[in-house]
Structures are given as structure tokens and as C-alpha cells.
């Protein structure tokens, strides 16, 4: 079995998860706003055409469509950025997803193309269209935008809950977390659009009462936010048991992010339901902006949770975060993880001996996807208080040391080389370093740990 090897880039103190997270969160926020924005524009246009809200037309022809336009263009660009970043972080993962879902991904592209063309068309010629055509164009935009979410949601949720038959496209697409995730994201998209609308409405030159009426309409549009706790509960219920326990106490940072996402969503939802809908409070532009910022925080925390819940996999049960499949571990235990890696080290002369060079390559192959040496989630910091034998044991039995870590996919010499490399880095990379003999216990510990 041949493991595909890709060149690995070092991002210095930046953990790769932070790089993809940074791009991904901005993209998700913009894209969800663009989806909700289209739905909200259609809703306001309909109110206007039915004579239910006299200033709705001014809103639809005002600044809001510009905001939607900017969002979906930036959404498209950050979407391309996500693609390139994912290749940097986990080329094999994106390749696997593409092999599985390329036709559905291509379908998502068709939907996005319709979204872009209809959005631009409304922006350019919406003002001169007859009412029927305006409504149809906005409906087309909203449906196309939501369908793009529909398709991408199936692909992304598959990573966490691919099911018992990961090779099946349709069972994989309509996986266990598909519906709660789709409905939750739809609610988020509507809430984001409503909050942004409140900001824009506050900039409109209208009397207070008329602004209030528009704000009330926008708040009504955000009503589905009330069911988000139920959807979140549904999502948690279908999570694999280990992922759920990991989010609800197994890991302090993950639990904290769950808390941030839930807390921020609760605050926004509470304000929307109680203050805006029940009490009909006229939200100011400043408050709406603050709530939008809070929603960004909730999005960021939510995406972090979604990514983290998959550990130690990028596709649960199929591909580890090290870009190695469970079936490949046995082979790598026999040959060593560096045996077939065609890429030399970039800084070969820096190392004091060949064992350290091997350790650096083991680190590159097995650790670099989630850890840095001296920056975020730094291995040197995480292991500096361990004794040598403790480190050997912890690495050899990695999946037992921490349940969210993958099994060590190398042989005993790889473990020893990695231990020496980390020690050498901890001691500030001295010019000379002794070459050690691999203790026989490591092979025994690897056997005891098993392959999964």
C-alpha cells in the first residue's frame, strides 16, 4: 500500500489549523450573510409589493444589496482561498472529498454561478424591472444561494459523520449531521442578514417610527433563531459519542469554544426574540453592529468546534489528521514513516546528526499538521516536562495518551528519532548531540497500543 507524499510547508509559529480556521471563519460568515441577505431582500420586496411596508422598497433599492454584492464576491474569493489553504494544510483530505463528491461540488458551482449572475443583475438592473421580474430575480438569487449551502453542507458534514459506508455518495451526502447542520446554518444566515439589515436601516433617512417598522420586519425575519437551541441539541445528539464527550468536558478549550458559541448565540437570540420581537424595541445601529460582531464570534467558535469535533480524523474513520488512513498504519509501522518520503529536509545542515534529521522528518510527517515546534500548540512546550522514557511511552501509545490523537504511524526507530529531535529542540539545538540506541520497550509499547 503506497501512501501519497506531499511536500510540507512550515508556517512557523502559526498552527495550520489556525491558518485554515482564519480563512474559513471569514468565508463562512460572509457566505452565510450573502445567503440570508438574498432571502431577506426577497422578503422585503414581497412586503413592498403587497403594500404591507411602505419603506421596504427603499430598503431593497438602498445600500443593503451593495452589502450583499460585496459579501458574495468576497465570499467567492475567500472560497478560492479556502481551497488553496486546505491544499496547504491537508491536500489528501481535500483530494478524498473531491474524489467522493466532485459531481455534487460541481452542482454547487452551478448554483453559485446562478447566485452571482442574479445578484449582479439585480444590483445593476433591478430598479428598472417590473415588480414580477424583480421578485423572480430575487427569488432566483435566494434559492440559488441557499442551494449552494445545501450542497456544500452535505460535503462538509460528511467529514464528521460519514456513516458506515463512507464510499456511498448519497448515503454520505445525506449523512447523520446533514439536516441539523443545514437547518442550523439557514437560521444563522437569516439572523446575520437581519442584524446587518438593522444596521443599514439605521442609516436610512426616515422618521423614527418608519425606521422602527422596518426594524420590526427585519426582526421578524430573524425569528427562526428561536429554534437554534433545538437544532444545536439535535446536532449534539447525533455526534459520535467520543466527539460529544470531547466537546462537553473532555477538552477544556473545546468546551470553552462550545460555551462561547452557545453563549453568544443565546445573547443574540434572546435580544432578538425578547427585545425586538416581543417588546418591539428600536435597536440602534451601534447595538446592531455589536450584535453582528458577537455573531461573528459565535460563527468563529462554532466553526472551531465543528473542526475540533472530528479529531483525530479529518474524515471520521477514513483519514487521520496526519493524512494517513487507518489501513496504512500497519505498513508504516513496518517500514517507518520516512522510508518512502521523497522530500529531503529544507534545512538539512542544521541538524547535529542523522537521527535528528530522521526525527525532523517524522515530525514533518506525523506532527506538523496540528502542531508547531515553538509556536501555537507547540510540541516542545507540550513535552518539555516529560522524562525521555515517558515521552517514548506517550508517543508509542499516542492514541491512548490522548484519545483525540491518532495512533503513531511509524516504527520504534521513528519514535526514538522524534524523542531525540524534540529534546534537541528543547535544549536550543546544540551543535553536537549523541546518537541513541532505540530501546526495545518502544516496539513492545507500539504493539500494545495497537493499530487503531
Amino acid at each position: 500500500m503506497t501512501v501519497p507524499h506531499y511536500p510540507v510547508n512550515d508556517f512557523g509559529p502559526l498552527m495550520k489549523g489556525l491558518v485554515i480556521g482564519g480563512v474559513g471563519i471569514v468565508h463562512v460568515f460572509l457566505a452565510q450573510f450573502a445567503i440570508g441577505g438574498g432571502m431577506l431582500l426577497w422578503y422585503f420586496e414581497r412586503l413592498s409589493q403587497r403594500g404591507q411596508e411602505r419603506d421596504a422598497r427603499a430598503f431593497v433599492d438602498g445600500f443593503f444589496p451593495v452589502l450583499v454584492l460585496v459579501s458574495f464576491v468576497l465570499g467567492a474569493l475567500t472560497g478560492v482561498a479556502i481551497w488553496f489553504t486546505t491544499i496547504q494544510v491537508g491536500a489528501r483530505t481535500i483530494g478524498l472529498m473531491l474524489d467522493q463528491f466532485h459531481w455534487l461540488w460541481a452542482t454547487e458551482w452551478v448554483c453559485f454561478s446562478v447566485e452571482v449572475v442574479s445578484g449582479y443583475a439585480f444590483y445593476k438592473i433591478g430598479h428598472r424591472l417590473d415588480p414580477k421580474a424583480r421578485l423572480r430575480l430575487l427569488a432566483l438569487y435566494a434559492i440559488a444561494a441557499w442551494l449552494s449551502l445545501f450542497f456544500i453542507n452535505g460535503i462538509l458534514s460528511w467529514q464528521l459523520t460519514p456513516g458506515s459506508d463512507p464510499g456511498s455518495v448519497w448515503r454520505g451526502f445525506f449523512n447523520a449531521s446533514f439536516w441539523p447542520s443545514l437547518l442550523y446554518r439557514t437560521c444563522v444566515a437569516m439572523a446575520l442578514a437581519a442584524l446587518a439589515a438593522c444596521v443599514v436601516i439605521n442609516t436610512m433617512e426616515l422618521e423614527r417610527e418608519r425606521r422602527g417598522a422596518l426594524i420590526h420586519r427585519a426582526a421578524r425575519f430573524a425569528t427562526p433563531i428561536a429554534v437554534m437551541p433545538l437544532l444545536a441539541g439535535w446536532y449534539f445528539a447525533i455526534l459520535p459519542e467520543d466527539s460529544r464527550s470531547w466537546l462537553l468536558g473532555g477538552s477544556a478549550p473545546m468546551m470553552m469554544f462550545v460555551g462561547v458559541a452557545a453563549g453568544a448565540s443565546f445573547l443574540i437570540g434572546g435580544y432578538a426574540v425578547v427585545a425586538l420581537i416581543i417588546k418591539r424595541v428600536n435597536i440602534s445601529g451601534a447595538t446592531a453592529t455589536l450584535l453582528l460582531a458577537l455573531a461573528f464570534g459565535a460563527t468563529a467558535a462554532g466553526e472551531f468546534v465543528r473542526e475540533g469535533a472530528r479529531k483525530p480524523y479529518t474524515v471520521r474513520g477514513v483519514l487521520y489528521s496526519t493524512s494517513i488512513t487507518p489501513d496504512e498504519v500497519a505498513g508504516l509501522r513496518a517500514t517507518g514513516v520516512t522510508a518512502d518520503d521523497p522530500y529531503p529536509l529544507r534545512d538539512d545542515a542544521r541538524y547535529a546528526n542523522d537521527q535528528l534529521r530522521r526525527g525532523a522528518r517524522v515530525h514533518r510527517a506525523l506532527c506538523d499538521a496540528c502542531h508547531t515546534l515553538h509556536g501555537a500548540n507547540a510540541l516542545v512546550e507540550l513535552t518539555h516536562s516529560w522524562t525521555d522514557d515517558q515521552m517514548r511511552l506517550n508517543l508509542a501509545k499516542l492514541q491512548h495518551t490522548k484519545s483525540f490523537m491518532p495512533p503513531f504511524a511509524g516504527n520504534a526507530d521513528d519514535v526514538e528519532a522524534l524523542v531525540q529531535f524534540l529534546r534537541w529542540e528543547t535544549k536550543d539545538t546544540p551543535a553536537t548531540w549523541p546518537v541513541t540506541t532505540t530501546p526495545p520497550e518502544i516496539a513492545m509499547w507500539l504493539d500494545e497500543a495497537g493499530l487503531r
Partner: protein
Amino acid sequence: MWPFDHGGGVLALYIGTLALHAVFVAYVLAGSAFALVRRQDPIAATVRDRLPFMLGCGITAGVAPLLFVQLLHQRRFYTANLLLGPRWFAVVPALIVGFYALYLAKASDKWRRIALGVALACFAFVAWSWSELHELMQADPEWAAFYAAGHRLFTAATIAPRFVTAIGAMATLFATVAAWATDDAGRKRLAAIALAGRTVSILGAVWLWRAGFSVDGPAVAWFGILAAATALDVAAWALVLRRPTDLVLALATGGGTAALLAAAVVREAPRVALIEVHAQAEVSGGAVVFAVALVVGAAAIAWIVRQIRA
């Protein structure tokens, strides 16, 4: 039919969507240059107005070939991406800067020149980067040494001529699209640009051939189609200089379209034998859904275009 007996429908979709993407990005790159150099030309105002939209279309249309190339050449595409690393990633901020520079050029007389210059530089950088990536994808014997040396710029004798060929073709494509939205005098001015663009792309192609690019085997037939289509295109544009009617312009557009598609196949020829086969991708479902979506999506876009024209 070669090359579609390799890679099947995916290769056809790749070539088709790449050609569509090329039309939009050609308008953006050559249009930015046109609007910068010929600021007082009446065509420039229309071009400036359309540039942000065309870039949006170009990026959106570019997602499809980006998707399909990962199926055809997954290992090579990912490896080249990774080897160029952060330098490759710079194409995204360059596109964002270029996009907003186009809006600035549209909105501000004062900043127009600088904004168009910045946008043009950004788009040229992206075009060069793609030429570089294309070559690096095929240079597998050099990958390990390139990585070990920590290089971020790939140099090969074929990159510059590939870039020049593309730039020349872009000028002609821009002229083709822009000519449909202008008067007779404008068409004549654009015909001169189209012919100049063709001259540059032909010279670039000769340079590319001398640098090592060769057309062999079944690709020769496609090269023949390319040559014939280019000849038709050149003849039609020469005629537009004297008789800029819709019929002659349609002839130039037809020749240009055929040349674009044939050029996309010829460009792909050296990589056909390198197409990867992925077992899962071969059996992956969803093609019918995509086909239906494509038809419905095309109908929706056609309806939108009709609304715009009405």
C-alpha cells in the same frame, strides 16, 4: 475521440469551463490594460463599468476548472501548489486588491489611472503564477530538489512564452467581447487590437515551440484545427477593419471560439498521458444531478440575460 477517451467527461468539462473562464479573465486583464492606455476612448467607459462584473464572472467560472483539474491531475496540482507555498497563495490577495481597484477605477476620476495600473499588475501576476504552476506541475523530476532548496519561484524556459501566448490571445478575446457592445468605429479600433493580439500570441507560440513545447501524435489534428480557426479569425478581423458588420464580427467570433477551444486541447495535450485515475472518483455518483443542475442553471442565466437586454 482523443483526448476525451482519457479522463472522459471530466476532461471535456475541464476544457469547456477553462475556455469559458478564459473569456472572462481575458476581458478583465486586457480590458484593464485598454482602459488604462486608452482612457479617452468611448469604449473605455463601457469597459470600466463592466470590469468588476467580469472579474466576478471570471472568478466564479474559474472554480469549475479548478475543481476538474484536481480530478485529472490531483497529485501534480497539489504538489505544485505546496511547492510554491505562500507565494502561490498570494494570488488570492492579488485578486482581492485587483477587484477593489476596479471599483475604484470605475468610481473615481482622480484615482482611475493608479487603480487601473494596480489592477493590471495584480491580474498579470495571477496570470504569470498560473503559467508557472502549469509548468511546475509537469516538472516532477525537479520537485524534490526544488523543495529542498526552499525555492518559491519556479523558472523554466517555457513559462515566459506561455505567458506571452496567453496575453496575446487575451487581447483578441477582449476585442471579440467588447466589439459586440460598440459602434462601427469602435469595432474597427478593436479589430486592430484583435489582430495585434493574434500576432503576439502566434509569436509567443513560436517561442514556446522553440523553448521545448511540442505537438505530437493525435494532438497534431487539433493543432490543425487551431491553425485553421486562427486563420479564419485573422481574416475576419482584417475584414472588420473595412466592413464592421454583425455578420463579419460573427465570423471572427466563431473563428475565435474555435481557436480558443482547440488551443485549450493543444495546451492540454502533453498532460493527457499524465491524467490520474482515482478508483473512487470513477464510481462516484451525482453526475445526473449535475447535468440537470447545469441545464436548469443555464436556463436561469439565459432568463436573466433576457431581462437585462429587455
